[in-house]
Protein backbone atom coordinates (compact mmCIF):
# COMPACT_ATOMS: atom_id res chain seq x y z
CA UNK A 1 0.00 0.00 0.00
CA UNK A 2 1.43 3.36 -1.04
CA UNK A 3 0.78 6.24 1.25
CA UNK A 4 1.70 9.87 0.83
CA UNK A 5 4.25 11.59 3.07
CA UNK A 6 1.38 13.58 4.58
CA UNK A 7 0.05 10.39 6.09
CA UNK A 8 3.38 9.73 7.80
CA UNK A 9 3.59 13.27 9.16
CA UNK A 10 0.07 12.85 10.43
CA UNK A 11 0.82 9.53 12.06
CA UNK A 12 4.29 10.39 13.31
CA UNK A 13 3.52 9.83 17.00
CA UNK A 14 1.35 6.79 16.38
CA UNK A 15 4.03 5.24 14.18
CA UNK A 16 6.73 5.99 16.72
CA UNK A 17 4.77 4.26 19.47
CA UNK A 18 3.98 1.24 17.26
CA UNK A 19 7.67 0.95 16.32
CA UNK A 20 8.79 0.98 19.95
CA UNK A 21 6.17 -1.63 20.84
CA UNK A 22 7.13 -3.92 17.96
CA UNK A 23 10.75 -3.62 19.04
CA UNK A 24 9.82 -4.64 22.56
CA UNK A 25 7.59 -7.45 21.25
CA UNK A 26 10.57 -9.19 19.66
CA UNK A 27 12.12 -10.28 22.91
CA UNK A 28 9.48 -9.66 25.57
CA UNK A 29 6.22 -11.49 26.34
CA UNK A 30 2.93 -10.04 25.19
CA UNK A 31 1.66 -8.92 28.57
CA UNK A 32 4.74 -6.71 29.04
CA UNK A 33 4.11 -5.12 25.66
CA UNK A 34 0.55 -4.30 26.74
CA UNK A 35 1.92 -2.77 29.94
CA UNK A 36 4.51 -0.86 27.95
CA UNK A 37 1.81 0.53 25.69
CA UNK A 38 -0.06 1.85 28.73
CA UNK A 39 3.16 3.19 30.23
CA UNK A 40 4.16 5.05 27.09
CA UNK A 41 0.77 6.78 26.85
CA UNK A 42 0.83 7.51 30.57
CA UNK A 43 4.32 8.94 30.55
CA UNK A 44 3.54 11.11 27.54
CA UNK A 45 0.45 12.50 29.26
CA UNK A 46 2.22 12.97 32.60
CA UNK A 47 4.96 14.94 30.87
CA UNK A 48 2.65 16.80 28.50
CA UNK A 49 0.39 18.11 31.29
CA UNK A 50 3.01 19.92 33.38
CA UNK A 51 4.96 21.16 30.35
CA UNK A 52 1.82 22.60 28.79
CA UNK A 53 0.92 24.18 32.12
CA UNK A 54 4.35 25.78 32.47
CA UNK A 55 4.26 27.33 29.05
CA UNK A 56 0.65 28.39 29.40
CA UNK A 57 1.67 30.57 32.34
CA UNK A 58 4.34 32.15 30.16
CA UNK A 59 1.91 32.63 27.26
CA UNK A 60 -0.65 34.15 29.58
CA UNK A 61 1.81 36.58 31.13
CA UNK A 62 3.10 37.58 27.71
CA UNK A 63 -0.32 38.15 26.18
CA UNK A 64 -1.67 39.97 29.24
CA UNK A 65 1.44 42.11 29.15
CA UNK A 66 0.88 43.01 25.52
CA UNK A 67 -2.76 43.83 26.23
CA UNK A 68 -1.57 46.21 28.93
CA UNK A 69 1.08 47.70 26.63
CA UNK A 70 4.13 46.25 28.32
CA UNK A 71 6.53 43.40 27.63
CA UNK A 72 5.84 40.24 29.55
CA UNK A 73 8.65 38.33 31.21
CA UNK A 74 11.70 38.63 28.94
CA UNK A 75 14.68 38.38 31.25
CA UNK A 76 15.20 34.63 31.72
CA UNK A 77 16.36 33.17 28.46
CA UNK A 78 15.44 34.34 24.99
CA UNK A 79 11.97 35.92 25.06
CA UNK A 80 11.68 34.70 28.64
CA UNK A 81 11.45 31.10 27.49
CA UNK A 82 13.16 29.81 30.62
CA UNK A 83 10.89 31.81 32.93
CA UNK A 84 8.62 28.81 33.76
CA UNK A 85 11.67 26.81 34.82
CA UNK A 86 12.86 29.65 37.04
CA UNK A 87 9.38 29.82 38.53
CA UNK A 88 9.43 26.08 39.10
CA UNK A 89 12.75 26.25 40.95
CA UNK A 90 11.41 29.10 43.03
CA UNK A 91 8.32 27.10 43.93
CA UNK A 92 10.37 24.05 44.88
CA UNK A 93 12.67 25.95 47.19
CA UNK A 94 9.96 27.93 48.96
CA UNK A 95 9.10 27.27 52.56
CA UNK A 96 6.05 25.10 53.10
CA UNK A 97 3.86 26.69 55.75
CA UNK A 98 0.95 24.86 57.34
CA UNK A 99 -1.32 26.93 59.58
CA UNK A 100 -1.20 25.94 63.24
CA UNK A 101 -4.87 25.04 63.48
CA UNK A 102 -5.18 23.50 60.05
CA UNK A 103 -6.43 19.97 59.47
CA UNK A 104 -2.98 18.79 58.48
CA UNK A 105 -3.85 15.65 56.54
CA UNK A 106 -6.63 17.19 54.46
CA UNK A 107 -4.52 20.28 53.96
CA UNK A 108 -1.81 18.09 52.48
CA UNK A 109 -4.16 15.91 50.46
CA UNK A 110 -6.10 18.69 48.72
CA UNK A 111 -3.35 19.85 46.30
CA UNK A 112 -2.46 16.24 45.51
CA UNK A 113 -6.03 15.23 44.82
CA UNK A 114 -6.72 18.24 42.59
CA UNK A 115 -4.07 17.21 40.06
CA UNK A 116 -5.60 13.76 39.57
CA UNK A 117 -8.83 14.76 37.74
CA UNK A 118 -6.91 17.39 35.80
CA UNK A 119 -4.59 14.68 34.48
CA UNK A 120 -7.36 12.12 34.06
CA UNK A 121 -9.23 14.29 31.57
CA UNK A 122 -6.22 14.06 29.28
CA UNK A 123 -7.12 10.40 28.76
CA UNK A 124 -10.14 11.08 26.58
CA UNK A 125 -8.84 14.12 24.69
CA UNK A 126 -8.26 13.15 21.04
CA UNK A 127 -4.95 14.86 20.28
CA UNK A 128 -5.00 13.71 16.69
CA UNK A 129 -6.12 10.93 14.42
CA UNK A 130 -5.79 7.67 16.44
CA UNK A 131 -4.15 9.67 19.22
CA UNK A 132 -6.73 9.28 21.99
CA UNK A 133 -5.03 7.68 24.96
CA UNK A 134 -8.09 5.65 25.93
CA UNK A 135 -10.89 5.47 23.40
CA UNK A 136 -13.69 5.16 25.92
CA UNK A 137 -17.15 4.71 24.48
CA UNK A 138 -18.43 6.91 27.33
CA UNK A 139 -15.60 9.43 26.91
CA UNK A 140 -17.72 12.52 27.26
CA UNK A 141 -19.52 11.18 30.31
CA UNK A 142 -16.13 10.38 31.80
CA UNK A 143 -14.98 13.92 31.12
CA UNK A 144 -18.06 15.46 32.75
CA UNK A 145 -17.83 13.17 35.76
CA UNK A 146 -14.13 13.65 36.33
CA UNK A 147 -14.07 17.38 35.75
CA UNK A 148 -16.77 17.87 38.38
CA UNK A 149 -14.53 16.16 40.96
CA UNK A 150 -12.34 19.27 40.91
CA UNK A 151 -14.77 20.95 43.30
CA UNK A 152 -13.94 18.49 46.04
CA UNK A 153 -10.19 19.12 46.49
CA UNK A 154 -10.75 22.87 46.27
CA UNK A 155 -13.28 22.65 49.05
CA UNK A 156 -11.02 20.29 51.00
CA UNK A 157 -8.19 22.79 50.81
CA UNK A 158 -10.36 25.72 51.78
CA UNK A 159 -11.93 23.89 54.72
CA UNK A 160 -8.67 22.44 56.01
CA UNK A 161 -6.90 25.80 55.95
CA UNK A 162 -9.09 27.12 58.76
CA UNK A 163 -9.07 30.58 57.37
CA UNK A 164 -12.11 32.73 56.74
CA UNK A 165 -10.94 33.87 53.31
CA UNK A 166 -10.21 30.30 52.26
CA UNK A 167 -13.58 29.13 53.44
CA UNK A 168 -15.38 31.95 51.65
CA UNK A 169 -13.47 31.08 48.49
CA UNK A 170 -14.36 27.41 48.92
CA UNK A 171 -18.04 28.15 49.41
CA UNK A 172 -18.01 30.29 46.31
CA UNK A 173 -16.25 27.55 44.34
CA UNK A 174 -18.83 24.99 45.36
CA UNK A 175 -21.69 27.28 44.39
CA UNK A 176 -20.11 28.40 41.14
CA UNK A 177 -18.81 25.11 39.84
CA UNK A 178 -21.96 23.16 40.61
CA UNK A 179 -24.07 25.83 38.93
CA UNK A 180 -21.96 26.00 35.81
CA UNK A 181 -21.73 22.22 35.59
CA UNK A 182 -25.37 22.08 34.54
CA UNK A 183 -25.39 24.41 31.50
CA UNK A 184 -22.06 22.91 30.47
CA UNK A 185 -23.46 19.39 30.45
CA UNK A 186 -26.58 20.51 28.64
CA UNK A 187 -24.54 22.44 26.08
CA UNK A 188 -22.75 19.20 25.24
CA UNK A 189 -26.02 17.36 24.57
CA UNK A 190 -26.53 18.71 20.98
CA UNK A 191 -23.11 17.40 19.95
CA UNK A 192 -23.99 14.01 21.40
CA UNK A 193 -27.37 14.09 19.65
CA UNK A 194 -25.88 14.81 16.26
CA UNK A 195 -23.01 12.34 16.46
CA UNK A 196 -25.10 9.75 18.32
CA UNK A 197 -22.15 8.80 20.47
CA UNK A 198 -20.50 9.64 23.77
CA UNK A 199 -17.05 8.74 22.51
CA UNK A 200 -14.87 11.79 21.81
CA UNK A 201 -13.32 10.00 18.87
CA UNK A 202 -16.67 9.33 17.22
CA UNK A 203 -17.79 12.90 17.82
CA UNK A 204 -14.72 14.14 15.93
CA UNK A 205 -15.33 11.64 13.14
CA UNK A 206 -18.94 12.83 12.84
CA UNK A 207 -17.64 16.27 11.87
CA UNK A 208 -15.89 15.11 8.74
CA UNK A 209 -16.94 16.23 5.27
CA UNK A 210 -15.66 18.24 2.30
CA UNK A 211 -12.21 19.59 3.24
CA UNK A 212 -12.85 18.20 6.76
CA UNK A 213 -14.70 21.41 7.47
CA UNK A 214 -18.12 20.12 8.54
CA UNK A 215 -17.51 21.31 12.05
CA UNK A 216 -20.44 21.61 14.41
CA UNK A 217 -19.71 25.30 14.94
CA UNK A 218 -20.91 26.01 11.38
CA UNK A 219 -24.48 25.25 12.41
CA UNK A 220 -26.77 27.54 14.43
CA UNK A 221 -26.99 25.17 17.39
CA UNK A 222 -23.25 24.62 17.17
CA UNK A 223 -22.46 28.31 17.59
CA UNK A 224 -24.80 28.68 20.55
CA UNK A 225 -23.64 25.45 22.12
CA UNK A 226 -20.01 26.38 21.65
CA UNK A 227 -20.42 29.83 23.21
CA UNK A 228 -22.31 28.41 26.19
CA UNK A 229 -19.83 25.57 26.62
CA UNK A 230 -16.88 27.91 26.40
CA UNK A 231 -18.30 30.36 28.94
CA UNK A 232 -19.07 27.49 31.31
CA UNK A 233 -15.58 26.07 30.77
CA UNK A 234 -14.11 29.44 31.72
CA UNK A 235 -16.21 29.37 34.87
CA UNK A 236 -15.31 25.74 35.56
CA UNK A 237 -11.59 26.38 35.69
CA UNK A 238 -12.05 29.53 37.77
CA UNK A 239 -10.58 31.88 35.27
CA UNK A 240 -11.46 35.56 35.02
CA UNK A 241 -14.09 36.97 34.76
CA UNK A 242 -15.42 34.02 36.78
CA UNK A 243 -12.54 33.89 39.24
CA UNK A 244 -14.64 34.47 42.34
CA UNK A 245 -13.08 31.57 44.30
CA UNK A 246 -9.74 33.33 44.33
CA UNK A 247 -10.85 36.94 43.96
CA UNK A 248 -7.64 38.71 44.91
CA UNK A 249 -9.23 42.01 45.74
CA UNK A 250 -11.79 40.48 48.08
CA UNK A 251 -10.44 37.21 49.45
CA UNK A 252 -6.63 37.65 49.52
CA UNK A 253 -6.16 34.54 47.35
CA UNK A 254 -9.37 32.62 47.97
CA UNK A 255 -9.07 28.91 48.57
CA UNK A 256 -5.28 28.83 48.31
CA UNK A 257 -4.60 31.66 50.74
CA UNK A 258 -2.87 29.32 53.18
CA UNK A 259 -0.88 27.39 50.61
CA UNK A 260 2.71 28.07 49.71
CA UNK A 261 5.52 26.48 47.79
CA UNK A 262 4.88 23.31 45.88
CA UNK A 263 1.36 22.83 47.27
CA UNK A 264 0.35 26.14 45.80
CA UNK A 265 2.11 25.21 42.57
CA UNK A 266 -0.01 22.05 42.35
CA UNK A 267 -3.22 24.09 42.63
CA UNK A 268 -1.89 26.39 39.97
CA UNK A 269 -0.90 23.49 37.77
CA UNK A 270 -4.33 21.86 38.05
CA UNK A 271 -5.97 25.14 37.11
CA UNK A 272 -3.94 25.54 33.95
CA UNK A 273 -4.21 21.90 32.95
CA UNK A 274 -7.97 22.17 33.40
CA UNK A 275 -7.98 25.24 31.18
CA UNK A 276 -6.09 23.30 28.53
CA UNK A 277 -8.26 20.18 28.65
CA UNK A 278 -11.48 22.17 28.69
CA UNK A 279 -10.32 24.09 25.64
CA UNK A 280 -9.32 20.81 24.05
CA UNK A 281 -12.75 19.31 24.71
CA UNK A 282 -14.44 22.45 23.40
CA UNK A 283 -12.39 22.15 20.22
CA UNK A 284 -13.25 18.46 20.00
CA UNK A 285 -16.97 18.94 20.42
CA UNK A 286 -17.61 21.98 18.28
CA UNK A 287 -14.50 22.93 16.29
CA UNK A 288 -14.01 19.55 14.67
CA UNK A 289 -11.22 18.33 16.94
CA UNK A 290 -8.29 17.28 14.77
CA UNK A 291 -10.30 17.60 11.54
CA UNK A 292 -9.02 20.16 9.10
CA UNK A 293 -7.60 20.48 5.60
CA UNK A 294 -3.94 20.20 4.57
CA UNK A 295 -2.17 20.24 7.96
CA UNK A 296 -1.46 17.18 10.13
CA UNK A 297 -4.25 16.31 12.54
CA UNK A 298 -2.33 16.92 15.77
CA UNK A 299 -1.31 20.38 14.52
CA UNK A 300 -4.96 21.21 13.88
CA UNK A 301 -5.92 20.06 17.35
CA UNK A 302 -3.23 22.05 19.15
CA UNK A 303 -3.87 25.09 16.96
CA UNK A 304 -7.55 25.13 17.83
CA UNK A 305 -6.89 24.49 21.50
CA UNK A 306 -4.34 27.27 21.79
CA UNK A 307 -6.65 29.62 19.93
CA UNK A 308 -9.30 28.97 22.56
CA UNK A 309 -6.77 29.42 25.34
CA UNK A 310 -5.77 32.75 23.83
CA UNK A 311 -9.44 33.74 23.92
CA UNK A 312 -9.53 32.81 27.61
CA UNK A 313 -6.49 35.01 28.22
CA UNK A 314 -8.14 37.72 26.17
CA UNK A 315 -11.17 37.47 28.49
CA UNK A 316 -8.88 37.82 31.44
CA UNK A 317 -7.28 40.91 30.02
CA UNK A 318 -10.64 42.50 29.31
CA UNK A 319 -13.33 41.79 31.86
CA UNK A 320 -13.71 42.75 35.48
CA UNK A 321 -14.93 40.09 37.90
CA UNK A 322 -18.61 39.15 38.14
CA UNK A 323 -20.63 39.98 41.22
CA UNK A 324 -21.68 36.80 43.06
CA UNK A 325 -25.41 37.20 42.43
CA UNK A 326 -24.81 38.12 38.79
CA UNK A 327 -22.68 35.04 38.41
CA UNK A 328 -25.33 32.70 39.75
CA UNK A 329 -28.10 34.49 37.88
CA UNK A 330 -26.17 34.20 34.64
CA UNK A 331 -25.87 30.45 34.99
CA UNK A 332 -29.38 29.64 36.20
CA UNK A 333 -31.54 32.26 34.57
CA UNK A 334 -29.76 32.81 31.27
CA UNK A 335 -27.51 29.94 30.22
CA UNK A 336 -29.71 27.12 31.45
CA UNK A 337 -32.88 28.10 29.49
CA UNK A 338 -30.73 28.88 26.46
CA UNK A 339 -29.21 25.39 26.49
CA UNK A 340 -32.67 23.85 26.63
CA UNK A 341 -33.77 25.92 23.64
CA UNK A 342 -30.56 24.90 21.92
CA UNK A 343 -31.37 21.23 22.37
CA UNK A 344 -34.74 21.86 20.72
CA UNK A 345 -33.01 23.64 17.86
CA UNK A 346 -30.75 20.64 17.35
CA UNK A 347 -33.77 18.40 17.05
CA UNK A 348 -35.20 20.78 14.46
CA UNK A 349 -31.89 20.73 12.56
CA UNK A 350 -31.87 16.94 12.57
CA UNK A 351 -35.05 16.88 10.46
CA UNK A 352 -34.51 19.86 8.16
CA UNK A 353 -30.94 20.97 7.66
CA UNK A 354 -31.12 23.58 4.96
CA UNK A 355 -31.55 27.31 4.50
CA UNK A 356 -35.05 27.40 5.98
CA UNK A 357 -33.72 25.64 9.07
CA UNK A 358 -31.08 28.37 9.37
CA UNK A 359 -33.79 31.05 9.18
CA UNK A 360 -36.01 29.25 11.67
CA UNK A 361 -33.10 28.76 14.03
CA UNK A 362 -32.09 32.40 13.91
CA UNK A 363 -35.70 33.43 14.45
CA UNK A 364 -36.17 31.14 17.45
CA UNK A 365 -32.82 32.10 18.92
CA UNK A 366 -33.49 35.79 18.44
CA UNK A 367 -36.88 35.63 20.10
CA UNK A 368 -35.65 33.50 23.00
CA UNK A 369 -32.63 35.75 23.52
CA UNK A 370 -34.86 38.81 23.55
CA UNK A 371 -37.21 37.21 26.08
CA UNK A 372 -34.33 36.03 28.28
CA UNK A 373 -32.72 39.46 28.27
CA UNK A 374 -36.04 41.04 29.18
CA UNK A 375 -36.57 38.53 31.98
CA UNK A 376 -33.06 38.95 33.29
CA UNK A 377 -33.20 42.73 33.45
CA UNK A 378 -31.87 43.79 36.83
CA UNK A 379 -34.47 45.38 39.06
CA UNK A 380 -33.46 48.94 39.79
CA UNK A 381 -35.78 50.47 42.39
CA UNK A 382 -36.96 53.97 41.66
CA UNK A 383 -35.14 56.64 43.52
CA UNK A 384 -37.25 57.88 46.35
CA UNK A 385 -37.32 61.58 46.96
CA UNK A 386 -37.91 63.01 50.39
CA UNK A 387 -38.96 66.63 49.97
CA UNK A 388 -37.63 68.83 52.69
CA UNK A 389 -40.31 70.03 55.06
CA UNK A 390 -40.59 73.75 54.93
Amino acid sequence: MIRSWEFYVDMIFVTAKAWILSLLGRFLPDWIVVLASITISGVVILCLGPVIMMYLTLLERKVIGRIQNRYGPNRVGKWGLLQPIADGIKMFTKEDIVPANADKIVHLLAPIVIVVPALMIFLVVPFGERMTAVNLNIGLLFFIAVSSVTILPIFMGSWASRNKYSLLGGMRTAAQMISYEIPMTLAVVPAIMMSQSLSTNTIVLAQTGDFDLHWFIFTPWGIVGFIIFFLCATAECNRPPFDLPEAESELVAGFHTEYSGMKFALFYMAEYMNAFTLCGIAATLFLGGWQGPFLPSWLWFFGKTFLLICVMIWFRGTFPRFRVDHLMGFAWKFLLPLTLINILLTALWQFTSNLTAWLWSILILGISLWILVKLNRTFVPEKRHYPLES
Partner: protein
Amino acid sequence: MIFGMGVFKGMMVTLKNFLTSYVCKPDNGGIFTVQYPEEREKVIENFRNFPFLVYDETPEKIRCVACGICERECPPKCIHIEMALDAAGKPTRKPAVFDVDYGLCMNCGMCEDVCPFDSIFMDHAFEVTAPEQSEGLVRHKERLMKSNEYFQKVRPTLASAIDQKRKASEDKKKAAAAQAPAPPPPSAGGPPAKQEPK
Protein backbone atom coordinates in the same frame (compact mmCIF):
# COMPACT_ATOMS: atom_id res chain seq x y z
CA MET B 1 -28.48 48.84 21.27
CA ILE B 2 -28.02 45.09 20.94
CA PHE B 3 -27.54 43.04 24.07
CA GLY B 4 -23.89 42.17 24.57
CA MET B 5 -22.42 44.93 22.42
CA GLY B 6 -20.62 46.45 25.40
CA VAL B 7 -18.80 43.20 26.01
CA PHE B 8 -17.79 43.04 22.37
CA LYS B 9 -16.57 46.65 22.39
CA GLY B 10 -14.47 46.02 25.46
CA MET B 11 -12.86 43.01 23.85
CA MET B 12 -12.07 45.03 20.74
CA VAL B 13 -10.28 47.64 22.88
CA THR B 14 -7.99 45.04 24.40
CA LEU B 15 -7.44 43.38 21.03
CA LYS B 16 -6.41 46.74 19.58
CA ASN B 17 -3.99 47.28 22.44
CA PHE B 18 -2.55 43.83 21.93
CA LEU B 19 -1.98 44.33 18.22
CA THR B 20 -0.69 47.90 18.40
CA SER B 21 1.84 46.90 21.05
CA TYR B 22 3.73 45.07 18.30
CA VAL B 23 3.71 47.77 15.65
CA CYS B 24 3.15 51.22 17.09
CA LYS B 25 5.37 53.77 18.75
CA PRO B 26 4.79 54.43 22.45
CA ASP B 27 2.85 57.63 21.72
CA ASN B 28 0.16 55.91 19.63
CA GLY B 29 -0.55 52.82 21.64
CA GLY B 30 2.75 50.95 21.60
CA ILE B 31 4.75 49.65 24.53
CA PHE B 32 6.11 52.46 26.63
CA THR B 33 8.36 50.36 28.84
CA VAL B 34 11.97 51.54 28.87
CA GLN B 35 14.10 48.49 29.63
CA TYR B 36 16.41 50.36 31.95
CA PRO B 37 19.87 48.88 31.98
CA GLU B 38 19.87 48.40 28.19
CA GLU B 39 17.74 51.35 27.18
CA ARG B 40 17.73 54.72 28.85
CA GLU B 41 15.52 57.69 28.60
CA LYS B 42 17.33 60.85 27.55
CA VAL B 43 18.24 62.91 30.59
CA ILE B 44 16.97 66.43 30.06
CA GLU B 45 19.50 69.20 30.31
CA ASN B 46 18.14 70.88 33.41
CA PHE B 47 17.95 67.62 35.31
CA ARG B 48 19.85 68.06 38.55
CA ASN B 49 21.04 65.50 40.97
CA PHE B 50 24.12 65.71 43.20
CA PRO B 51 26.61 68.59 43.28
CA PHE B 52 30.06 68.46 41.74
CA LEU B 53 32.98 70.91 41.56
CA VAL B 54 34.19 72.44 38.30
CA TYR B 55 37.85 72.99 37.51
CA ASP B 56 39.07 74.85 34.47
CA GLU B 57 41.97 73.25 32.63
CA THR B 58 43.76 71.18 35.24
CA PRO B 59 42.56 69.94 38.61
CA GLU B 60 44.87 72.49 40.27
CA LYS B 61 42.87 75.33 38.71
CA ILE B 62 39.77 74.61 40.72
CA ARG B 63 37.27 77.45 40.74
CA CYS B 64 36.28 76.90 44.35
CA VAL B 65 37.94 79.29 46.80
CA ALA B 66 36.66 77.55 49.93
CA CYS B 67 34.58 80.56 50.95
CA GLY B 68 32.08 78.28 52.72
CA ILE B 69 28.90 79.98 51.50
CA CYS B 70 27.46 76.72 50.21
CA GLU B 71 28.40 75.01 53.46
CA ARG B 72 26.37 77.57 55.38
CA GLU B 73 23.44 77.67 52.96
CA CYS B 74 23.08 73.92 52.53
CA PRO B 75 19.75 73.02 54.19
CA PRO B 76 20.62 69.46 55.23
CA LYS B 77 24.23 70.48 55.99
CA CYS B 78 25.82 67.86 53.83
CA ILE B 79 28.86 69.94 52.73
CA HIS B 80 32.05 70.15 54.74
CA ILE B 81 34.88 72.48 53.63
CA GLU B 82 38.32 73.20 55.05
CA MET B 83 40.53 75.80 53.46
CA ALA B 84 44.08 74.84 52.56
CA LEU B 85 46.93 76.66 54.33
CA ASP B 86 50.30 77.34 52.81
CA ALA B 87 53.62 76.70 54.51
CA ALA B 88 53.46 79.94 56.45
CA GLY B 89 50.02 79.11 57.80
CA LYS B 90 48.23 81.61 55.59
CA PRO B 91 44.93 80.64 53.94
CA THR B 92 45.41 79.95 50.23
CA ARG B 93 41.86 80.32 48.90
CA LYS B 94 41.80 76.67 47.88
CA PRO B 95 39.84 73.90 49.52
CA ALA B 96 41.92 71.30 51.31
CA VAL B 97 38.88 69.25 52.21
CA PHE B 98 35.62 69.38 50.31
CA ASP B 99 33.21 66.59 51.28
CA VAL B 100 29.64 66.18 50.17
CA ASP B 101 27.58 63.48 51.85
CA TYR B 102 25.34 62.19 49.05
CA GLY B 103 23.40 60.28 51.68
CA LEU B 104 22.30 63.54 53.24
CA CYS B 105 22.05 65.69 50.12
CA MET B 106 18.45 66.40 49.15
CA ASN B 107 19.25 67.58 45.60
CA CYS B 108 17.83 71.07 46.19
CA GLY B 109 20.51 72.88 44.19
CA MET B 110 20.85 75.67 46.74
CA CYS B 111 24.66 75.39 46.61
CA GLU B 112 24.58 76.00 42.87
CA ASP B 113 22.42 79.09 43.36
CA VAL B 114 24.47 80.72 46.09
CA CYS B 115 27.96 80.05 44.76
CA PRO B 116 29.49 83.41 43.65
CA PHE B 117 32.46 81.69 41.98
CA ASP B 118 30.50 79.47 39.55
CA SER B 119 32.25 76.46 40.94
CA ILE B 120 29.61 74.07 42.26
CA PHE B 121 26.88 72.68 39.97
CA MET B 122 24.38 69.89 40.00
CA ASP B 123 25.37 66.76 38.09
CA HIS B 124 23.45 64.35 35.86
CA ALA B 125 24.91 61.19 37.38
CA PHE B 126 22.07 59.47 39.19
CA GLU B 127 23.42 55.95 39.51
CA VAL B 128 24.99 56.34 42.94
CA THR B 129 25.33 53.28 45.11
CA ALA B 130 27.34 52.34 48.14
CA PRO B 131 27.67 49.18 50.21
CA GLU B 132 27.04 51.06 53.45
CA GLN B 133 25.39 54.34 54.26
CA SER B 134 27.58 56.35 56.58
CA GLU B 135 30.94 56.47 54.79
CA GLY B 136 30.12 55.00 51.41
CA LEU B 137 28.08 57.90 50.12
CA VAL B 138 30.50 60.64 51.21
CA ARG B 139 32.27 62.04 48.18
CA HIS B 140 35.65 63.65 48.72
CA LYS B 141 37.21 66.44 46.73
CA GLU B 142 39.01 64.18 44.28
CA ARG B 143 35.82 62.48 43.18
CA LEU B 144 33.76 65.65 43.22
CA MET B 145 36.02 67.52 40.85
CA LYS B 146 35.05 67.36 37.21
CA SER B 147 36.41 69.31 34.27
CA ASN B 148 34.74 72.20 32.54
CA GLU B 149 34.49 70.02 29.40
CA TYR B 150 32.35 67.57 31.32
CA PHE B 151 30.17 70.45 32.48
CA GLN B 152 29.90 71.63 28.88
CA LYS B 153 28.84 68.15 27.88
CA VAL B 154 26.09 67.56 30.43
CA ARG B 155 24.62 71.06 30.67
CA PRO B 156 25.80 72.95 27.57
CA THR B 157 23.46 75.95 27.84
CA LEU B 158 24.32 76.87 31.39
CA ALA B 159 28.02 76.05 30.98
CA SER B 160 28.49 78.25 27.92
CA ALA B 161 26.54 81.11 29.53
CA ILE B 162 28.80 80.90 32.55
CA ASP B 163 31.93 80.68 30.39
CA GLN B 164 30.85 83.82 28.53
CA LYS B 165 30.19 85.63 31.79
CA ARG B 166 33.54 84.65 33.19
CA LYS B 167 35.33 85.63 30.00
CA ALA B 168 33.60 89.04 29.95
CA SER B 169 34.51 89.78 33.53
CA GLU B 170 38.11 88.73 32.93
CA ASP B 171 38.31 90.99 29.85
CA LYS B 172 36.91 93.84 31.90
CA LYS B 173 39.50 93.26 34.57
CA LYS B 174 42.30 93.19 32.02
CA ALA B 175 41.01 96.40 30.47
CA ALA B 176 40.85 98.01 33.90
CA ALA B 177 44.36 96.85 34.65
CA ALA B 178 45.61 98.30 31.36
CA GLN B 179 43.90 101.66 32.05
CA ALA B 180 45.20 102.07 35.56
CA PRO B 181 48.95 101.58 35.27
CA ALA B 182 49.56 101.48 38.98
CA PRO B 183 46.73 99.77 40.82
CA PRO B 184 46.55 100.38 44.54
CA PRO B 185 47.68 97.33 46.49
CA PRO B 186 44.68 96.92 48.83
CA SER B 187 42.06 95.52 46.47
CA ALA B 188 39.73 94.20 49.13
CA GLY B 189 36.06 95.02 49.13
CA GLY B 190 35.75 94.94 45.37
CA PRO B 191 34.47 92.08 43.24
CA PRO B 192 35.57 88.92 44.97
CA ALA B 193 36.52 86.78 41.99
CA LYS B 194 40.16 87.39 41.48
CA GLN B 195 42.29 84.54 40.47
CA GLU B 196 45.86 84.67 41.57
CA PRO B 197 48.31 83.00 39.29
CA LYS B 198 51.34 81.39 40.81
